[in-house]
């Protein structure tokens, strides 16, 4: 199978996953969404009628007014296609088409910082912040992890190797958000070095905004790095130890090549495919984990938006955020696949 065919196959699978997730989300929230849109249509009509003084005075009894309003609501619901059940294929198809074209509608309660209630505006405002925090964290974690893992792999069973493995095992069983709560307790309460809430307290237009943003980012960043690099180092170590047992390394050693050079340029290069794949995967994984972490630190990104949307059940926002998160997740899975296929031709042939 050629590389192109491999790419095409993966891309189709990913698109299928995106559609499946979208369909699942719409089915899950469909009935609630239905009653919400019906209610808002009814509310709109009622407001129109009560604002129209001439129309209002033309009715003699309240019954007449009520039946008029009922009629209008019915008409509007038919016009919007809401008279069909929410699970009818046309309506599901329509909602999926709308979401695919990034038309998420208007939020019920939440607004962006600039006051817009368009879900797309809200997401576009929050997304860069999440990417900023989690990309920075992943970058630091991977550099630290690769370095520490290489050192550990070069001295198997040494003290540093054992510490790395121990750290990886222990840090994997702590929930990141709990460490976050602890960090807030220690560094915002006991020793007030960092702010407890990660939302910057100056407005976006202020020249000091970037500085404030970075200062508020410090505590979540430190937490993410602290929890993350142990597992990374452990993974890198395991890949490297595997590579170092291969024959070609033996040959290099026999040829008298410097041990450091073997480790950093030859072994690390061969361990690169799985490492790069995991890098891409951990980026996407951290986006999903962001929901809880951002809620803990009050970081104004996608995760907290999701959390807020859930607590007030703002369905348009939930659907929009799920779609964007899924899309990001899938793009990085796809990139990981492609990288792996590029580095390791055996995968393509499978």
């Amino acid at each position, binding site marked *: 199978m050629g590389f192109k065919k491999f790419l095409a196959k993966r891309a189709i*699978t*990913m698109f*299928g*996953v995106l559609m*499946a*997730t979208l369909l*699942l*989300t719409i089915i*899950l*929230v469909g009935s*609630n969404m239905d009653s919400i849109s019906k209610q808002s249509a009814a509310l709109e009509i009622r407001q129109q009628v009560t604002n129209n003084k001439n129309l209002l005075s033309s009715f003699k009894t309240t019954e007449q007014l009520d039946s008029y309003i009922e009629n209008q609501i019915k008409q509007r619901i038919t016009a919007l296609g809401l008279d069909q059940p929410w699970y009818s294929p046309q309506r599901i198809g329509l909602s999926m088409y709308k979401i695919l074209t990034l038309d998420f509608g208007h939020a019920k309660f939440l607004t962006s910082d600039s006051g817009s209630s368009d879900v797309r505006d809200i997401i576009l405002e929050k997304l860069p912040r999440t990417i900023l925090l989690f990309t920075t964290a992943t970058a630091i974690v991977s550099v630290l992890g690769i370095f520490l893992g290489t050192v550990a792999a070069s001295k*198997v069973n040494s003290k540093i190797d054992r510490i790395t493995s121990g750290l990886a*095992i*222990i840090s*994997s*069983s*702590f*929930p990141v*958000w*709990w*460490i976050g*709560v*602890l960090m*807030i*307790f220690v560094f*915002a*309460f*006991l020793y007030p070095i960092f702010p*407890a809430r990660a939302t910057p307290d100056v407005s976006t237009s202020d020249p000091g905004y970037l500085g404030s943003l970075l200062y508020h980012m410090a505590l979540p960043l430190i937490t993410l790095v602290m929890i993350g690099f142990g597992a990374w180092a452990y993974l890198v170590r*395991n890949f490297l*130890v*595997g590579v170092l*047992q291969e024959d070609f390394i033996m040959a290099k050693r026999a040829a008298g090549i410097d041990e450091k050079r073997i480790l950093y340029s030859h072994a690390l290069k061969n361990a690169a495919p799985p490492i790069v794949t995991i890098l891409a995967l951990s980026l*996407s994984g951290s*986006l*999903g*984990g962001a*929901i*809880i972490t951002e*809620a*803990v630190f009050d970081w104004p990104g996608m995760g907290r938006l*999701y*959390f807020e949307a*859930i*607590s007030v*059940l703002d369905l348009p926002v*939930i659907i929009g*955020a*799920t779609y964007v*998160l*899924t899309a990001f*997740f*899938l793009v990085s*899975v796809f990139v990981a696949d492609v990288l792996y296929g590029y580095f390791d031709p055996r995968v393509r042939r499978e």
Partner: protein
Amino acid sequence: MSFSAKTIWKEFSHSKIGIVGIAILVILFSMSIVAFVTIPLDNFKTWNDPASWLLYPKSAQPAWVNYFQSEKIPEHLILKPISSSQQLDSVSVLTDSFVVNYQYDGFPSDFIYQYTAKYSGSPLLQMSVTRPDGMILQLVSTSLPFANGDTTYSSMIFSTQDVITKNIEDKKTKYAFSLDGMSSEKIIFSKLDENTILKGPYVFRVHLYDVSGTPVLAKSNLIIGGKVYGIMGTDELRRDLSVGLLWGTPLALFIGITVSIGSVVFGLVYGVYAGYKGRSTDEVMMRFNDIIYAMPALPLLIILAVTIGNSIFLIVGFLVIFGWVGIAKVSRSMALQIKTLQYVEASKLMGQKDYKIIFKHILPQLLPYAFASIAISVPGAITTEAGLSFLGLGDPTFPTWGQILHDASSYSAAARGMWWWILPPGIMIAVTGLAFVFMGQAMDSIVNPKLRQR
């Protein structure tokens, strides 16, 4: 590839971390048994009911912090009475006395007497206190509402009631300082020459006088308010945290073990079936597996919990939905190897049915791997459930450690320095996870001997 239970156990018992894991697990299981025995489930279900925690202090630290402090913080005491009764002519007197040896370096925050009396007529209730220096203060003297027949009456006497301060005023000449505007517990527990705490034994007595019958105090508790309580302290909603932490243990074990067994069994059967059948069955099943594998678990879990429901059993089910995929992939590739072995081919040629080959010849080979996977996937299930609960999506009838942390964060416990509310639940989650990780590591090195050589 073949293992007997005996050799596995022999290898396992040589692994130090495996034994540590088992030891922690045994402790956790005994904690669960203690929870079942000491706190009935029905009691635990009142966890979220504020009415059942009225007697407890608000945000109290654990009582043992006093060992590390030179200044003893007053402990929150819930005192049980010593009852006696006597007959004076026609009057029957019921006396409940509460003895407390008060050795703390601060005044109690308040005191509350809570009682339920059964009587007929109109008995007289008197409350007094004998201080360590022998002085007796009359606190309350009140008659209970008149009743023609037998009646039950429940009420409380609070230290903040005006009548108590008024009654104490009789003795104000004994005090060397002015009592104006002072709350009653600061006077009762004070030295005479200056307003500091008088340490020593205090005896609170409650008398119930009745002429028309013998009254009974069905319930009688004296609560002396303080700032430390119990082994684990209390939270903002006055709940005793030790109860929540203890009951969290069986719940976490239940969630972790059920989810991992469910995921592993389903993943194993799914993967082995796909691998054994091969061809288009395999292709279709593995594409479906890919789809679930690539779905973002947490957002979907949240949507499922919000829309379908958040009962603990549903959450276990949701976690299984996202838990089996990885195991299915690995067991498929293992099945691909095993099905080419000669004895499998042989039984196929003998006309053995497919499901018999799978269950008799392939699955038993994968059992060691299955056990290792069960142990390894428990911590993930526990932390994910804790995460969902932390977001406020947990089952309110079965509060888990994650929900305790959720409450802690919604009352911003971290910013207020309430460490006893944040630390223990997280440590419990981590320790439970570690026990299984340790066991999983030990089993993993038996199942994959390659890892040992590294």
